[in-house]
């Protein structure tokens, strides 16, 4: 819900991009220049945001109490010299500002240091876990976008009817359910099996690990993915539905729809060719903005289902605290949101000529 309003208010920003000054070139050239200027501004803003995220990621996790060196060596006999050596190895014996400049310099080269616990480079760890997260997020995202848009359209078109009330009611209810709880319940019913329901869908990791390849392997992964995807879709499609519904309702009273009907077009055609394309605009923006947040929001679902993705990695890193890994993950999560926002900003004027000119 909150995200939904973010999307719409971002669009309603009255201080939006200033109109470009008059130009000697033709209307098309002027448009292109205006768009380039608009795009450059957005890209610059994104770069500033990225840097701010970098700074935040460094300082936020430095203030976590607890000595990572002690956590790692927990339960083993280590001398003070060894502890010092470990600290030197991690680079946390230097003053804070020196660590910071070093961190920024390395991060610009894509180097986030080595994980304290797993000893591998953070970039590599994140890179290895990224496909699992992208697979899960991507599938869930495509599904709930389609379901949300479809149901939202139906709801708005038959506004106030039984179907509308049922759809909005159900989506709001599912939206209010904590994702981790829904995940636990689904595991109970469909993975463990309850009563007459057999344990149909395996969970935990992505694959059974029986060394199958090709199609069998793909099927195995798909089988493991069913429950996490269902959880993400169930909790997430309400936002798309509600935004699609309200933006279509906004269009419903428009004159051009009356005109279309007056031409004698069938109801389905009026909806599909005229109303829906216009109502899709705000929904598309929201979807992009959400896509960025979805990756970060999966932490819970990945933890519950032991899905080997970034969310699970974040949860593991939090308990050490594994500073380089946390920094890297935080940066990746925030960068994802910034990337998607910028993409939405850049695509939007192409979809809707009123924006960015």
């Amino acid at each position, binding site marked *: *819900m*909150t*995200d939904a*309003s*973010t999307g719409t*208010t*971002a669009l*309603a*920003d*009255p*201080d939006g991009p200033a109109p470009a000054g008059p130009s000697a070139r033709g209307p098309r050239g002027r448009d292109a220049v205006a768009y380039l200027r608009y795009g450059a501004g957005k890209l610059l*803003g994104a770069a500033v*945001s990225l840097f*701010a*995220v970098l700074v*935040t990621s460094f300082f*936020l*996790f430095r*203030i*976590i*109490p607890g000595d990572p060196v002690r956590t790692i060596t927990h339960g083993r006999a280590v001398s003070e010299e060894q502890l010092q050596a470990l600290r030197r190895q991690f680079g946390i014996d230097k003053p804070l500002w020196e660590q910071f400049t070093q961190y920024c310099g390395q991060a610009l080269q894509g180097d986030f240091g080595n994980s304290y616990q797993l000893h591998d480079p953070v970039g590599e760890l994140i890179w290895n876990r990224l496909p699992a997260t992208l697979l899960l997020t991507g599938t869930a995202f495509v599904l709930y976008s389609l379901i949300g848009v479809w149901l939202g359209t139906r709801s708005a078109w038959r506004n*106030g009817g039984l179907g*509308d*009330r049922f759809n*909005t*009611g159900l989506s*709001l*209810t599912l*939206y*209010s*359910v*904590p994702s*981790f*709880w*829904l995940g*636990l*319940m689904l595991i*109970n019913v469909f993975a*463990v099996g309850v009563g007459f329901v057999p344990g149909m869908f395996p969970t935990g990791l992505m694959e059974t690990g029986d060394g199958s390849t090709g199609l069998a392997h793909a099927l195995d992964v798909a089988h493991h993915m069913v429950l996490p995807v269902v959880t993400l879709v169930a909790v997430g499609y309400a936002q798309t539905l509600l935004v699609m519904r*309200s933006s279509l*309702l*906004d269009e419903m009273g428009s004159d051009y729809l009356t005109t279309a009907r007056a031409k004698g077009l069938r109801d389905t055609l009026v909806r599909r060719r005229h109303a829906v394309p216009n109502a899709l605009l705000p929904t598309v923006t929201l979807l992009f903005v959400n896509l*960025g*947040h979805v*990756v*970060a*929001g999966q*932490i*819970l679902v990945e*933890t519950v289902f032991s899905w080997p993705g970034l969310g699970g990695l*974040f*949860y593991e890193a*939090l308990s050490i*605290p594994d500073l380089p890994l*946390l920094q890297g*993950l*935080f940066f990746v*999560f*925030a960068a994802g*949101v910034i990337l998607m926002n910028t993409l939405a900003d850049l695509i939007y004027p192409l979809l809707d000529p009123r924006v960015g000119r």
Partner: protein
Amino acid sequence: MTTTDTDTRTKDTPAKSPRALARDRRRRSAARFWRQYRTHRAGLFGLAALALFVLLAVFAPLLVGADVQSVTKAPGLPLEAPGSEFPLGTDKDGRSMLGLLIWGARFSLTVGFLAAALSVAIGTLIGITAGHYKGWYATVVMRITDWFLVMPTLVLAIALASVLSRSIWTIILAIGVTTWPTTARLVRAQTLAVESRPYIERAKALGGGHSHIMTRHVLPNVMPLVLAQTTLVISSAVLTEATLAFLGLGDPTVTSWGGLLQDARDSGATTKWWYVMPPGIAIALVALSFTLCGRAVESVLNPRLGASR
């Protein structure tokens, strides 16, 4: 109410004080608001459910007593199935689930209300000032807001909750500090709309200062929007609180719904339905009720939204 109403009318008809006039107007608009709100069935349902939860939370000490939370005085066996003695069974320490659930309502609602109050207060303050004072102040503040908007809220809240000591205030702070930007943006847009109206110019011409315009003219006009936003923020705050508690970042000394779920997961008792189902349903019900109220308020303010009735 009605008698005093007629009294004042008969006595002060020629010269009614501006204060009384304003009070009358406010009462009338509140009544109008309620009349329209009443037509939203979902909103009424939400309100009724909330009233029930608030009553349960307030009277928890009378209903079940604080002893239900004590592990040492636990009356039952661990993980007893629901029966005549324990309508919802017992948890891993043999405490009554029903009692724990009622106590959990206290914590979840408190966190929800306070976190939302903090978040909305920050958001309203920033939104109104950013809309009122244009120039560098607005630019800087809105850049900060945008920066907070791109931060993954949950990740930031988790980081803050793990940085600070484990207590209820940490959770309230973590939620409040991470969720205000949405409100700030909404309120700023509304402030800009209000400030372009002629009566603001009139107030300025009559010598109204910045604080007069912001508190007397802009604030009352953004309040309805803020009210709708608050209920929505409470709903997400309740969910975030449960999430943080489930991740083990909550206050271990109090009973909360998310904490109960964490206990269930840590003790490997997630298959015991009476342990896992009730807290989740309670969280979902409270979050849903606030959302329904918020949507009803929104559609009273903006009938074009056409929220389902």
